[in-house]
């Protein structure tokens, strides 16, 4: 497949309900899937992450990061807190590459004492598949 296109833009929607404090919450695709598996011959380059809580934060904060096989990767992240119910961040390609075979997802690390634990999260993650 790597000969088909120079790059393939990909946008993914993730969600999570009832964020737990002092925990790493792994978001899912809308119907519960773990994420997007990077195809052979490509690497996934995260470009933009957008996060939104359906309820304002009343204590502490929650940090959202791109993950490979459930483990956060450095680089692209956003933090939601009492003054930021929506946040967006972007980065250039080639900064972070998630290798073929890995499952791309989003994890949310809520600080101890984070509230409300009834909050729902929506995340849009966009990136590029670039041949390796």
């Amino acid at each position, binding site marked *: 497949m790597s000969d088909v296109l120079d790059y393939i*833009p990909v*946008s993914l929607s993730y969600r999570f309900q009832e964020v737990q404090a002092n925990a790493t919450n792994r978001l899912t695709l809308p119907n519960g899937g773990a994420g997007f598996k990077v195809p052979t011959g490509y690497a996934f380059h995260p470009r*933009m992450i*957008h996060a939104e809580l*359906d309820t304002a934060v009343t204590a502490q904060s929650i940090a959202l990061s791109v993950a490979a096989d459930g483990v956060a990767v450095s680089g692209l992240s956003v933090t939601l807190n009492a003054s930021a119910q929506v946040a967006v961040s972007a980065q250039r390609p080639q900064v972070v590459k998630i290798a073929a075979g890995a499952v791309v997802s989003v994890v949310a690390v809520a600080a101890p004492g984070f509230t409300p634990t009834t909050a729902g*999260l*929506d995340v849009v993650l966009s990136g590029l598949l670039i041949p390796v």
Partner: protein
Amino acid sequence: MSNELTFQDGMPITLVFSKANVEPNTTTALTLPQGGVGLKVPTGYAFHALLISGESNADISAGTGIFKATANTTVLTNGPSATLSDLVQVASGVMRPHAEPITAGKIVGVSVVTDANWSANTVDLDAVLVGVLLPA
């Protein structure tokens, strides 16, 4: 934050929205899968809505429902639109870039505008909005 997303023709973004039980003669905002309102345009960029696709899980027996892109819930005048009606359960529409860019800080969403004859009050609606982020 600026220019991180720049490449050949902008950074394409695809957004998925849904809503159930839309009333007639209303403008109703669809939501992201967990209920969020939409995408906040990052600083330094504008969002150009290019394509919208709307779908109902059952036939619209009377009236029309028009899917439109929104900025802070205000329907774009020159954005793409897609109209569902009797026997048209899926529709799409396109628009050129730069027709009506949504500026940084605003929330990109989708609304459906129903007329007074809309009789599909119990259907489930899905919409896909495709656009590009271009440096402002």
